[in-house]
């Protein structure tokens, strides 16, 4: 993994730790013991919203300030799906998935993924009923969608957030990729969804 990739992954994870810390500290300002003493309760929804705030911010920063600036504005370096071979920047979606992978290697208290009703890689199309409902809902209303679902006998709190085209780089790539089922994405509009899952049961 390149230094850039490592750095951004580290930043992403650093963001998660800060988010977790914020949740842990809460209004009591101390550790988990303090939370219990002060009676602060953090719901799965609050946790998912906090995680999304970090994920979406990092994703936007990378897309706008790294990829869009260096590739499309200053034309210093390209971003490529085959970034290792092409000695290029990872695409924003790849950066997102690398962070998701690194996080999943470290914790199983949550997971996140990037899905779409119009994915370039068909494996990123909705697979569960909640994913389908959620992606349709965020595409229509551009607001988060929350639900519970059972996968493999385990219950999850699942949140789906709209993933919008935040920079020209997003739509240029998706509208021109030969595997993309759509070529009419527009800046600022929803292209897919960030799906965050928090397990509610051990089994």
């Amino acid at each position, binding site marked *: 993994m390149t230094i850039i990739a490592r750095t951004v992954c580290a930043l992403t994870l650093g963001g998660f730790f800060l988010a977790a810390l914020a949740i842990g500290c809460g209004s009591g300002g101390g550790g988990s013991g303090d939370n219990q003493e002060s009676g602060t309760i953090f719901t799965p929804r609050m946790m998912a919203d906090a995680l999304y705030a970090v994920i979406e911010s990092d994703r936007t920063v990378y897309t706008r300030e790294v990829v869009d600036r260096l590739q499309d504005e200053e034309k210093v370096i390209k971003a490529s799906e*085959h970034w*290792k071979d092409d000695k290029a920047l990872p695409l924003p979606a790849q950066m997102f998935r690398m962070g*998701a992978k690194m996080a*999943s290697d470290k914790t199983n208290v949550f997971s996140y993924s990037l899905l779409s009703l119009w994915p370039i890689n068909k*494996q990123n199309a909705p*697979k569960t009923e909640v994913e389908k409902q959620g992606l349709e809902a965020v595409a229509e209303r551009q607001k988060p969608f929350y639900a519970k679902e059972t996968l493999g*006998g385990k219950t999850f709190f699942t949140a789906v957030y709209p993933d919008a085209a935040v920079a020209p780089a997003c739509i240029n790539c998706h509208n021109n990729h030969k595997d993309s089922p759509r070529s009419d994405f527009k800046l600022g509009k929803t292209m897919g969804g960030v799906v965050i*899952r928090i*397990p509610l049961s051990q089994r």
Partner: protein
Amino acid sequence: MRTRTSWGLLVFCNLLIGAFFIWRLQTDNQQAFLPGEATHGHHQIELACEACHIPFEGVPQKACLDCHAEELEMANDSHAESVFSDPRNLAELELLNARLCVSCHVEHRPGMVTSMGVTVPDDHCFHCHFDIAEQRPTHTEMDFNTCATAGCHNFHDNRALYEDFLLEHSDEPGVLVTPLVSKRDEPEALGPPLSFGDHDAPADREVDPALLAEWAGTVHARTGVNCSDCHVAEDPKALWDDSPTHKACKSCHENEVSGFLGGKHGMRIASGLSPMSPSLARLSMDPEAMERELGCTSCHDAHKFDTTRAALDSCLGCHADNHSKSYKDSPHFKLWQEEVSGIGVPGSGVSCATCHLPRESHKKGDDKWVLVQHNQNKNLQPNEKMIRGVCMECHGLSFSIDALADPVLIERNFQGQPSRHVESVDMAVQRAIEDLKRKKK
């Protein structure tokens, strides 16, 4: 009375059998516990049970990754564990836990081993890619047991097979304009060049002048490596070791020795077993070589360190399968002869080592260097792993794919042309043309 005696005998026999197995567990020879032959990749270490198994815990994923994680990382593993770890895959994972190597690669089941040298379900692609024909109409008539056996896809390593790579190299000729392999880097010198009289073997040792003469003609002498630099005793109290092992070589050739220990020649040593010997091999070996043992000096010689010999004659001194025996009739050998005789330019010859112990180029910042990969497993099976690092040094991509998909041609050591054509490059080109047409509309 007779019943009591019978019971006593039965208990005694059971204790005896139990004691035998406990004793065998403590020894190096654990043949008695082998449930079936291991695969081609593991048979050398099949008696080092603890290399993979933990008593009463089976085979942990870590055991596989300890040896294969680096390789998978380098290969940009197309189906890394993380691909499956998202909870959205939990239902499928209950059917087939694709996060674990042992879900597909079962050991000690020789009847289930495929041509790739591992056990793997025939139709493993189907479960996730059952609708591939919807996205790729060209795949409509294709069977799911051909995805990974027709030269088009691999489960893990697709570095030479992904669509954009096929497209990028679609117009390459069978033989490239400058078919040359990279030049090996000479190791950094330890000191000024040494000659015959500079040797520092202990005065109380009788030294064969012929050995000294051999050493004086090597890169070792040229780069200031003296006798005492290699004949280092493992026991710090001893000053000299008559027969240094790979551990002495490792002090300067760490990458090469690591590759050797991870590969077919050194994996037994790495697992604490006796060195590999042709008598233990499954491939056909020269009957006269059966009792040899493999270490660095068995191929490189103890004092000559002749890389030309190591790249060819050392291999053919043991290997006697059809592929090896056909080599000297191949165009590759002709090129090698020309290079060695000075007619061909450096890097134009193709020895056994050119393909099986390939030169790998590395780069970090402005520093570039070339090392010989001594771990043959890294590009052996599936053989498409050889395309980028080896074949494409001299050949075009499509020709390389075709050649490696032709087992008869491989057995004849590439005498002739591929008898079949793998259409993957054509399909990539066709799709690119269709995409262009679509965009023009």
